[in-house]
């Protein structure tokens, strides 16, 4: 495929899951097994297509849009259908096609009550198109539509297949995110009218920016900030996340942590920063402070959790704090770090949620005290796997988590765009506290491992037959386990792809 002309490939890949959802809807609900296999088939074909797109992607010019489709769409309001991919989108787009495939494979054997694979997988496929769309849409209206499209299937996933408090959690997730996106939409509209260029194209607007007074930019940025920061989520907008994760079914949590949260940080990088550089500059120190509070605060919350899944959910608050610290650095290294942290967190925490889900399948509880230790004795392969992923999550070099965290701190020591002149001291303090956050992160993970992995299994479980890692789990998890190692050893896999695109982006920012 020629990345200059084969825009169709991207469009096909984008809508294939949605079409697949339609196909599933046509199948009779009684064909339980076939529905599950069909979902694997659909996600596999979509993934194969994305692999082909990746293979023919021109990595020499990642800063330019490739596989572009740009056609008129709603001409009355100047909205165009612009779909394309560049170095910033590529890693996230790839992850958006890998995770649903693994989830579909996992679902062939695991589906929480009330079952209904047709509805469940249909929603998952719808979700996939929504998520993928946000990463490749280059028109604000189109972006917004994909952004909102994501909410609905996730709402139903949590609300129908979730835990005991699923109604509360799903409504909270939906309304909180929707609340933010209203302000985001207002900011989009304000930019459209301020620019007066009769275009919603992100590329065109980026090239034209900045527009409006710095007061205008500050207010518009505040609107976007609310939309994106809630999605990330940044402290103090994080409270929907632990509830959503705790109640969501395993697949919901995996996709939520693996891809959904990334839409927020991606929005900051792709839209808020280049379109509103002065607003971003004003907000950067605030973002930095909130990010580091999130790191420390999230880690402290983890120390107090008694439920494994809730602990992992809170760990996301800390990890996304590092991502936002990278953004607050406002330089190339910081954006690189943020985007790397995005991917690493998606892979690692996605995997952690798989593990938390299967833990519940085995023990029928996620309470640390009830599990009581000895997993390395009882189910050794699972125990080793948990140790491996936990160590990756606490940022050990050689595994994926390290690069996002270290580089974010490194970038923040010397913030860009003149921030260093006024805020050098503040950023040094931020770096120190972020580094202290890594100690707290290590503390809660090691303590978790000590309490559930090590020691002898308590009497309650000693004679209980518990399955070690099953075949279906090996199949659906191995790619992630390998990716954790590969990204740790070859950071160039992400940094290298993003490098050119981030340079272009910083070009917009610097004016």
């Amino acid at each position: 495929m020629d990345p200059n002309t084969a825009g169709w490939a991207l469009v096909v890949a984008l809508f294939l899951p949605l079409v697949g959802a339609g196909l599933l809807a046509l199948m009779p609900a009684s064909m339980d097994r076939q529905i599950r296999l069909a979902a694997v088939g659909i996600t596999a074909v979509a993934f194969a297509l994305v692999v082909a797109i990746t293979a023919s992607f021109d990595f020499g010019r990642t800063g330019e849009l490739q596989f572009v489709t740009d056609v008129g769409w709603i001409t009355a309001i100047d909205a165009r259908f612009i779909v394309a991919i560049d170095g910033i989108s590529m890693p996230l787009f790839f992850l958006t096609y890998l995770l649903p495939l693994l989830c579909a494979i996992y679902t062939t054997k695991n589906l929480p009550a009330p079952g209904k694979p047709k509805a469940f997988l249909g929603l998952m496929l719808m979700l996939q198109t929504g998520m993928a769309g946000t990463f490749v849409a280059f028109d604000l209206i189109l972006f917004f539509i994909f952004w909102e499209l994501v909410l609905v299937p996730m709402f139903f996933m949590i609300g129908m297949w979730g835990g005991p408090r699923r109604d509360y959690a799903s409504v909270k997730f939906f309304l909180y995110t929707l609340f933010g996106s209203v302000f985001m939409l207002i900011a989009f509209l304000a930019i459209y009218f301020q620019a007066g260029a009769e275009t919603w194209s992100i590329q065109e607007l980026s090239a034209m920016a900045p527009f409006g007074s710095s007061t205008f930019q500050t207010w518009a940025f505040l609107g976007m900030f609310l939309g994106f920061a809630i999605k990330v989520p940044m402290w103090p907008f994080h409270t929907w996340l632990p509830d959503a994760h705790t109640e969501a079914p395993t697949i919901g949590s995996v996709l939520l942590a693996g891809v959904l949260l990334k839409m927020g940080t991606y929005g900051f990088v792709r839209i808020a920063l280049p379109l509103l550089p002065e607003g971003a500059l004003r907000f950067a120190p605030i973002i930095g402070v909130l990010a580091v509070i999130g790191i420390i605060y999230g880690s402290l919350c983890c120390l107090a959790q008694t439920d494994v899944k809730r602990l992992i959910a809170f760990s996301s608050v800390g990890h996304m704090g590092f991502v936002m610290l990278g953004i607050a650095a406002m330089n190339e290294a910081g954006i690189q770090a943020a985007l790397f942290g995005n991917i690493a967190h998606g892979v690692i925490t996605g995997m952690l949620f798989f593990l938390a889900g299967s833990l519940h399948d085995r023990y029928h509880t996620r309470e640390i005290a009830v599990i009581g230790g000895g997993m390395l004795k009882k189910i050794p392969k699972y125990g080793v796997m948990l140790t491996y992923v936990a160590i990756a999550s606490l940022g050990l070099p050689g595994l994926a988590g390290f690069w996002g965290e270290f580089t974010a701190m490194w970038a923040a020591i010397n913030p860009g765009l003149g921030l260093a002149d006024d805020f050098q001291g503040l950023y040094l303090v931020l770096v120190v506290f972020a580094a202290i956050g890594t100690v707290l992160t290590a503390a809660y993970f090691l303590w978790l491992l000590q309490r559930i992995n090590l020691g002898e299994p308590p009497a309650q479980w000693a004679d209980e037959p518990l399955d070690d890692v099953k075949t279906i789990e090996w199949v659906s998890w191995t790619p992630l386990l390998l990716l954790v190692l590969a990204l740790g050893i070859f950071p160039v896999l992400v940094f290298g792809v993003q490098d050119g695109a981030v340079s272009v982006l910083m070009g917009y920012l610097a004016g």
Partner: protein
Amino acid sequence: MEALLDYAWVVVALPLLSAALIAMFGKQLPGGGSELGVASLGLAFLASAGIAWETFVNSPIEPVERALEWSPLGGGFVFELGILVDGLTAVMLLLVTTVSLMVHIYSREYMRGEPRFTYFFSMLSLFTFSMLVLVVANNLLLAVIGWELVGLCSFLLIGFYWEKKPNQDAANKAFLTTKFGDVGLIVGVIVLSAGMFELDTSTPFNILEINGAAAAGDLATGTIVLGMLLIFLGCVSKSGQMPLHVWLPDAMAGPTPVSALIHAATMVTAGVFLLARLYPVMAQSQAVMAVIAVVGVITLFFGGLLALVQDDLKKVLAYSTISQLGYMIAALGVGGYTASMFHLFTHGFFKALLFLGAGSLIHAVHSNNMSDMGGMARAMPHTFWTFIVGSLALAGFPLTAGFFSKDEILIAGDIWAGAGFATGALVYWIGLAAAFVTTFYMARVCFLVFAGENRSHHPPHESGKQMVGPLMLLAVLSIASGYLLSPFSPDQPNFETWMATPILDEDATFPFTEDGATEATGVQGDGVQAGGEVVAVEGAEGGPVSVLHGVPSWHPDLLAIVLGIFAVAIFLAYRFYGRGVPERDPTLRMGPVSTALVNKYGFDAFGYRFIVVPVRDTLSRWATYSSNHWLDGIVGGVGRATMSVAQSTYRVLDQRVIDGGVNGAAFSAAWWSERLKRIQSGDVQRYAGALVAGVIVLILAFIAVR
């Protein structure tokens, strides 16, 4: 042979390969994978020996740097995967591979029959790999990676017996204490690299570039001081300096070969090595050097004292390691660059020897406690004499390796004192005092373990060949390695020329000592370079002090003091312990001093009470509470407020006002129609009356408006 240096990465790759192969195939092999570890470490040792030879005989050499561009980091900066080979690297390569090879061989016998035997060997190899990454790294980021990986391996091996809670706790304590120090290391490295941003380089972590920039004065003083002090915090935790030493004694929960390799010979010296690596940076700042010297002095003395009251043999050795690391750190702070690395090198051999000897004893009596030993000299002759050699070297008995290396440190202190720095005198005198303590506690160990009657519950037996062999080889090295830098050494090559680099060559001086340079330059020049006479420098108060000190000469005064210390310490130890375990150990009868020592000065209790508990139990709960109640309370409040607005909208506005309006319209229509219909009575006079009344009202209205 020159080309050998280019291939130093092979030394690093070999243990990684064996770690992977052992993990994959170890269980199927007759030796449980240990043979792969021994083979790869054997090869790595040979290659290291070649590199060491090459760098030694041709010393001082130009550093060899080979690097691959590994990944962009953004902003035009790149992360390199590279090696930096000079004398410093070569010494560490030799030390690490030698001790690791010995420990691999030894563990084949020591760990026989253990569950997770294969895992153990895989981890040993992985540790060796990580340590070598740190050692050969050409840039600080890569060094940080190695540094963190050795920490992980240390954690996994301390917690090797993870069934028991104390071992889990020890592992967590080790990881988290060192991780706390890593805050300093990471931020320090970041600060130094940020200082390089302005120097037009794409590799801001490159060690040679940073050293060069510092030596050329291109780094701001603030950057150097802040960066190095932060990095030093990392070294304090990793290298067991007070007050972050608390993890090291607990780390003895790991299998003894692990203690020998990781917690005595190699990983704990990483901090010393890293400071030596960055010596040109550190040497720029008098303040940094003073802080480092003071922390080292405190540790070498107070750490050593703690060894006095231990019954657990491994804990005695652990505290002695802390104390000896204190010597190395202190040496760096008083201009003893060579002395510090020399002590690191010799200490690696004799401390590994002592730990492996302790392992041999523990293997025989199934207890770590000296009160369960006694009379082992007869039962375990080889362990006995090798242990005695190690003890003598540790105590610094003349003509052993420890004697030469420790004397180098004391002399460095003396020179520093002579240049007018108080820390120099501190190192000299407290170093001597601590030497007394060291000799006493090692004599105590030797008497308690080897003299008197056997108190163990198992009939002791000598260990097999695979354990005794490494002991003997290390015993030889515990003496021989000292002659690399002694009054018998040639001017070139010796350990000092080995450590020299183009930046730290014989002309290098400490910049802050140069104030009185005019009158002293000549003195310093011939004093140091003409074959090791240090007297001239000692007299040159205020003059520039050289980084290199030349071949040491005999110091009869120091020799006399050392011998005196020996005689007194051994005499006392014999009196107290010569006839077995005393009723009450005299070290426990020193009143408040003993109490302080038994309580480890209260550091552990303090850390638990004022750091662990508040963070784990108080702050964490507060954070969760505030998240669940305050922050979520706001969200919930907004939700409830919206709901109540919605409710009122429905009830008041919709139901009463609007819907009320609609209904009201209907009702009022009926009400009015009821009343209005009476008007339409069909009575013409009434209509006419109303008409007249209307006209009158209109006329009146017109008049009023007018």
